[in-house]
C-alpha cells in the first residue's frame, strides 16, 4: 500500500460510528457529515431547472440589455396583462359613471362607492402633496374637511376648481387679488396694526366684545376691505374673498399671521387639473372632496354671502366697490 492510498482509507470513529474526514489537527479529527442526499438532489434539479429558465425567460445581461428568452414573457408583460384585466373590470363601472350626473352618483350606492374609491386613491396621488393625506391642509393649503370654502363647496363648484385651478394661468381659473396694503404703501403700518386688531375681533367668540362699529379699525375696514370681504366681513365667494368672521384661517389666525397677510397680501396657487387628469378622475375627486365633510348642496346660482341681512340694516350704507360686488349675471357655469 502506498502512502497515498493510506491517506484516503476510510476511517470510522469508534465512539459514534461515523466516518472521519481524514484530516487531523493535533490529534483532533472531524466527523464526516456530508449534505443529505435529498438536499443535494434538490440542488441538482434546481440547477437543471435554471438552465431551462435561462432559455425561456430573459436572464443574462448582455451588452445592450439582456437575453430575450424564447417565450417573450417578462415581468412587464405580466404586469400589463394583469393591469388590462383590472382595467376591463373597471370599465364596467366607468361606462356607467361616465354618463351619470352628480345627482345620479350621489343617489346610487354603487356609483358612489366607485367614485369614493377612485377619488380616495387619486387624492393621495395628486392632491395630498399640498392638502395632506387626511385633506386637512396646512398653512396656505386649505383644509378640505371643513365647511369653509373660498370658491364654493358644491359638487359643481369643486369640480370647476379642480378643472381650472386657482391662479393657475388657465383662462377660467379662479383669480383674486388682495392688495399688499403695507408693502404697496396703501396703508401705514400703524393702520395695518389697527386693521389687524379689527379683523381679529371679527372672528372673536368672546361674548363681551364691544360692538364692531365702535372699534378703531371700523372705518379703515369699511373703506379698504369691505369691497371684497363685505361690510360685515363675511367675505364673498364671487371674488374668492374669505369669510373673516369664522374661526378658520388659511394663513394662520395669530396676530402676526394676520398682520403679515394684510401687509404683504397672500396668493396661493392650485394647478388646473383638466390637462393632467381625465374627466372621470376629476369627477371622482370632486365627489371625494365633497364627501370629506364640508360639501355643500348644489345651488341654482351662488349665494352671495355678503347680501345684507335684516339685522345689519345699518350696514347698507354704500361703501367703495359696492357696485362691483353685485352679482355678475348668472354666467357662473
Amino acid at each position: 500500500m502506498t502512502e497515498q492510498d493510506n491517506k484516503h482509507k476510510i476511517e470510522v470513529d469508534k465512539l459514534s460510528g461515523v466516518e472521519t474526514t481524514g484530516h487531523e489537527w493535533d490529534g483532533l479529527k472531524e466527523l464526516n457529515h456530508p449534505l443529505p442526499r435529498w438536499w443535494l438532489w434538490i440542488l441538482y434539479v434546481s440547477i437543471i431547472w435554471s438552465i431551462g429558465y435561462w432559455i425561456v425567460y430573459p436572464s443574462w445581461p448582455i451588452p445592450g440589455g439582456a437575453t430575450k428568452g424564447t417565450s417573450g414573457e417578462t415581468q412587464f408583460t405580466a404586469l400589463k396583462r394583469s393591469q388590462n384585466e383590472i382595467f376591463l373590470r373597471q370599465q364596467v363601472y366607468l361606462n356607467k359613471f361616465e354618463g351619470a350626473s352628480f345627482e345620479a352618483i350621489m343617489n346610487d350606492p354603487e356609483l358612489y362607492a366607485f367614485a369614493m374609491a377612485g377619488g380616495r386613491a387619486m387624492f393621495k396621488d395628486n392632491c395630498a402633496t399640498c392638502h395632506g393625506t387626511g385633506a386637512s391642509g396646512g398653512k396656505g393649503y386649505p383644509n378640505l374637511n371643513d365647511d369653509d370654502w373660498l370658491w364654493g363647496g358644491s359638487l359643481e363648484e369643486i369640480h370647476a376648481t379642480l378643472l381650472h385651478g386657482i391662479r393657475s394661468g388657465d383662462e377660467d381659473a379662479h383669480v383674486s387679488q388682495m392688495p399688499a396694503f403695507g408693502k404697496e404703501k396703501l396703508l401705514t403700518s400703524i393702520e395695518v396694526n389697527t386693521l389687524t386688531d379689527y379683523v381679529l375681533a371679527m372672528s372673536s367668540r368672546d361674548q363681551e366684545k364691544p360692538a364692531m362699529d365702535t372699534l378703531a379699525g371700523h372705518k379703515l375696514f369699511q373703506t379698504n376691505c369691505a369691497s371684497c370681504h363685505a361690510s360685515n366681513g363675511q367675505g364673498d365667494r364671487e371674488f374668492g374673498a374669505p369669510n373673516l368672521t369664522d374661526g378658520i384661517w388659511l394663513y394662520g389666525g395669530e396676530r402676526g399671521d394676520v398682520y403679515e397677510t394684510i401687509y404683504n397680501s397672500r396668493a396661493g396657487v392650485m394647478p388646473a387639473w383638466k390637462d393632467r387628469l381625465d374627466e372621470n378622475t376629476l369627477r371622482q375627486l370632486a365627489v371625494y372632496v365633497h364627501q370629506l365633510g364640508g360639501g355643500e348642496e348644489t345651488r341654482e346660482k351662488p349665494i352671495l354671502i355678503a347680501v345684507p341681512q335684516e339685522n345689519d340694516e345699518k350696514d347698507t350704507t354704500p361703501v367703495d366697490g359696492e357696485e362691483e360686488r353685485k352679482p355678475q349675471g348668472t354666467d357662473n357655469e
Partner: protein
Amino acid sequence: MSDDSEDIQLFKKQENIYPKRVSGLFRNLKWIVMGVTLAIYYLTPFVRWDRGEHVPNQAVLLDIVNGRAYWFWFELWPQEVYILTGILVLAAIALFFVTSLFGRVWCGYLCFQTVWTDLFVWVERIIQGDRNKRKKLREGPWTWKKIYKLAITHFLWIVISWFTAGSFVLYFTDAPTLVRSFIDLNVSTTVLGFIGGLTFSTYLMAGFAREQVCTFMCPYARFQSAMFDKDTLIIGYDVKRGEPRGKHKKGESWDDKGHCISCTACAQVCPMGIDIRDGLQMDCIACGLCIDACDDIMDKVDLPRGLIRYDTENGFEHGANAESKTNVIFRPRTAYYLAILSVVCIIVFYALFARSMLEMTVLHDRNPIFVQLSGGDIRNGYEVKILNKTHDHREYTLGVDGVDGAEISVNTAGNINENTLVVHANSVGQYRIFVHAPIKPSQPHDIIFTITDNEDGTAYEYKSVFISKRP
C-alpha cells in the same frame, strides 16, 4: 468504546403489518362505528337547513369566503371564534374524561386515522386475500398477478381518497352546487387543488403511514397515557392466568400451565403490529381486535373467554373479580374532569345562546382627528360598522351620548340618515358618519354610540372618543 455502538439506529424501519381477518363482538362494533361515522362524514354536507332566503341553507357549512360557520341551529361570525375555541377545549376535556374512564376508545373506534386505515385494510384484503396471502404477494417476486392486484388495490385506495377529499371540500361551500359543477366539468382550480392535496394525504396516511401516524405523529397518543391510572379501562393480557404460556395438545392437562397457548392470534390481528402480551404499551390503540381473536381461540380450547379483555390495571392485578371495579367510575380524577367539563360546557353554551344579534364597532378618524367648523363647532369623523346577525334586512337608529349638543350626520349615497341605517341580512354595514358639537377645545371626551334595531329594539353600545384639540 464498545463495538456495539456502531449499531446505533436512530430511525426505526417501518415493518409491513398484515392484520389478519377476525370476527367477534369488537370487530362488529368497529364495522358499525365505521359505517356510521363514514355515513355522517359523506352525507352531512347534503343535509339542508332552512335559514331564510338571504342565508345559506346548508346544515353544516364553514363559509370561509364570507366568514361564517353554520351548524344546524348555531351560527358563528369570525369575531366569535372564541366560541369555537371553547368547543375545542370542550372536545379536549371530553377526550380526557372518556380516556380516564375507558382508555383510548377514541383511538380504537372513532379516530379518522383508525377508520380510514381500517377501510383501506378491508379493500386490501378483498383484493389481495388475508394475512398470509398478502404477505406472500407483497414480499414475493414481481409477477403479473402481483402487479395487477397491487394496481387494483391502489386504484381503489385513490378512488376512496378522492371521495374523502371531495366530501371534505363540500363542508366549505354549497354542496349541491359543487357536485353540479363536477357534473358540468366546470370546477375551480382552487377546489381541484384542495381535493388533490387531500386525496394525496388520505392515500398516504391510510395507505402507507397507517400505524406510524398513531405511534410517531399523533400527540394525543402520547399524552393520553397521562390520563391513565390503575382504574382506567385498558385492553390487557391476564398474565396471572396466561403464564406460563406454551403449546397445548388437545386433552392435555392444564395443570402447571397458563391458559395462553402461544397461538399468536392476538398479534396477527393487531393493526398496530404489537403483541398485547408484552403488557400495556403506547402503540396500543385499544381497538379490541385481539380480544375477539383470543376469545375465539379460548372457545376452541374450551376455556373461559377473557384471557385478553377490557379491564383495569387493578382488575388484572387482583384477578378477574368484580370487587375492584366498584369504584372505577367515581374517583378524584374523573370527578375533576367532569367538573371542568361541566364548567366549560356551561360557558360555551352560555356564549352560544347569549350572543348578541347586533354588534357595532366605531373607529375614530385618525387623519384629521378633528375638524374646526366655520361656525365654531368641532366635528369628528367615525367609521361605523354595524353587524346584523339576523337573517333579514334591518334598519337601525344611531344615537350619541356623552357630548353636549352632539349631532350626527351620515355621509353616504342616497337618502339615508342616522335613523334609517340599512344593513342587509347576515352582513356588516359600514357607514361613515360625522358628529359635530358646539364645544370649546378641551381634553378628549368619552362618547357613547348606541345602535338600536328599529324592528325589535335590540341595542348595542360602543364607547369611543370625541377629540376637540390637538394633543
